[in-house]
């Protein structure tokens, strides 16, 4: 939260850290970002990433303890992406994401208590517990899911941006998805619509190299994803998704263009998930060595190395406390009464929270 709050002051500087390249001239290798000196700003980014990490580590434990159920997809290893991008997204801009959504919700400023309660299926959860891990929605921060049909969120983002355009608002909509989603027809149709109508959408591809067990090169004939964006005339950036400053810089540049009427932009963040696809899988499809190599570029460690004069341990214990409070909050929460099961299948006669803004 603090990262986003302090953003306006820093976003100009962040531009300098961008390692994006315009459409067609993307060099994926050139992903080392220029570093700035540590700052309160970077500390906030670190804190956000750590909040995500610790939150999810705790969720994994709670999953083993069967207090969290269903499908849970951890974001561990990818924290820099949501953190860097959402740091640059204004409070009234819309955000759309996938089932791998804890990081986005937390970086967006959804209270951790409510996210944890949701994971527990409590009525105090952000969706009254009905959505669970995969479906975090939050009207106050305009988080439109938490969509678990791969590719399903992209058309929603196009429509949200269309509404903004038709209502004369100059703000961006940000849409996260995995590289695997880019094979779906929904990706193609959404990119074309957004580009054709020059809508203010920032498409953020979290390229973690795998869709479940399927490596990018076994799911897409063209693995240079920026070229895919080019097919719609959409400018594309590729950035180092393990380096939160690089992500933030690229997002800042792309968002500035989007807000400026430049039409949709495509940002590929090269990242990696350190854990299985969902809570457990065999992970037979990846090399141990590959995982280890990526872990050397742990986004938290990377950033920590740039925070010389910051008391990381203090942050660590603050975050640990926040996570424990969230668990306690969820524990103390309540089951939604079964009598409410059929509420909100359709709107209630007087909508208020549910009214579109």
């Amino acid at each position: 939260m603090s990262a986003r709050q302090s953003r306006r002051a820093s976003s100009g500087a962040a531009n300098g850290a961008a390692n994006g390249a315009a459409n067609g001239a993307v060099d994926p290798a050139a992903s080392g970002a220029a570093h700035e000196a540590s700052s309160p700003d970077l500390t906030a980014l670190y804190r956000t990433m750590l909040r995500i990490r610790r939150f999810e580590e705790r969720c994994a434990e709670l999953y083993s303890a069967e207090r969290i159920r269903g499908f849970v997809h951890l974001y561990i290893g990818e924290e820099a992406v949501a953190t860097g991008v959402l740091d640059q997204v204004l409070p009234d801009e819309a955000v759309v994401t996938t089932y791998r959504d804890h990081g986005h919700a937390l970086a967006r400023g959804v209270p951790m208590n409510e996210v944890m309660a949701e994971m527990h299926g409590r009525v105090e959860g952000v969706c009254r517990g009905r959505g669970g891990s995969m479906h975090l929605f939050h009207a106050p921060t305009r988080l439109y899911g938490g969509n678990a049909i791969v590719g399903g969120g992209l058309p929603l983002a196009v429509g949200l941006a269309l509404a903004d355009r038709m209502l004369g608002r100059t703000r961006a909509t940000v849409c996260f998805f995995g590289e695997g989603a880019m094979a779906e027809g929904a990706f193609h149709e959404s990119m074309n619509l957004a580009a054709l109508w020059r809508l203010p959408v920032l498409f953020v591809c979290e390229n973690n190299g795998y869709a479940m067990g399927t490596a990018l090169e076994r799911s897409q004939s063209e693995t240079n994803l920026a070229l895919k964006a080019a097919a719609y005339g959409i400018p594309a950036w590729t950035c180092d998704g393990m380096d939160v400053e690089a992500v933030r810089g690229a997002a800042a540049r792309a968002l500035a263009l989007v807000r400026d009427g430049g039409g949709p932009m495509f940002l590929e963040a090269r990242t990696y998930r350190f854990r299985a696809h969902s809570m457990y899988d065999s992970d037979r499809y990846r090399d141990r060595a590959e995982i280890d190599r990526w872990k050397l570029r742990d986004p938290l460690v990377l950033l920590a190395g740039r925070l010389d004069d910051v008391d990381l341990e203090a942050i660590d214990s603050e975050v640990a406390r926040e996570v424990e409070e969230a668990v306690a909050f969820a524990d103390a929460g309540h089951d939604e009464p079964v009598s409410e099961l059929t509420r909100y299948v359709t709107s209630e006669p007087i909508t208020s929270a549910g009214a579109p803004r």
Partner: protein
Amino acid sequence: MSRQQTRARVAAEQPVVTYREAVREGIRDAMRRDDRVFLMGEDVGRYGGGFGVSMGLLEEFGEERIRDTPLSEGGFVGAGIGAALGGMRPIVEIMTVNFSLLALDQILNSAATLLHMSGGQFNVPLVIRMATGGGRQLAAQHSRSLEGFYAHIPGLRVLAPATVADARGMLWTALEDPDPVVIFEHGSLYNMSGGLPADSWAVGIDRAMVSRPGEHVTLVTHGGSLRLCLEAAEALAAEGILAEVIDLRSLRPLDDATVFESVARTHRALVVDEAWRTCGLSAEVAARIGEECFYDLDAPVGRVAAVEVPVPYPRHLEQAALPSAERIAAAARRLLSGSEAARA
């Protein structure tokens, strides 16, 4: 409904318009009334709509609000959902129900689900219109009746205007609904003419309508089959059989109370639906009558539905595949004689 009441139904002259014009007037009126309303779909603009519904609207409202889309049913229906979430009141036209399968994921998994799954946070005030049905020799891939798929989905409201007044009026009411509404316009109705009270607009969408009162058997139907049922009822009347014809109007939720009330009087029911019989809407209506009118029924509930084949192109085969007034009347007769035989 307040605006609705301000425009009371007055005994004004009733201009005769086509169903197509009525839909168009409904759209035009909605767009004049509310800046947030816009129409989006394939060829709704320059072409004037696949069935000519939106002819002329581009000139009046411009390209932003009469928005031609690429061939991307999943994409633009999803964009409609997003625009609804974002504060607009989109009317999305899917050219025909046949192509709507490409958007069904978005309709079911997003439009119909977001409100509940988000714990009441995000409603989707979206109206989707599409042409449905066969009877025009368009062959299998252009002659489906898939209303039953949509009527299965909680979170949707599904309407089937069968009259000129409903064609115009249901759109108004649908646009006032905070949740997604799917409207099926039967392709064979666009050229149908009917009187339209100039001063009555929004129509209620909660109740089925007794289109023709009767005593001996209840014909339950909707959309393009209504005319066939009325025709059959006319033929039956000549033989002294008085059929009550019910136009369901809303396919989800179903106003089964009106149906039950009728069957309680007639003791016999025939469900008429242009869709395939198995697992179609007719099954649900028949099942509910069986459940709720069990002790009122003098004969098993009958069904007249499409023969279970992809609709073929030649006229004689298409006619044989789809319900007709003759088949309906014959089934009604069997229902009466059969049950009497059984009771005799």
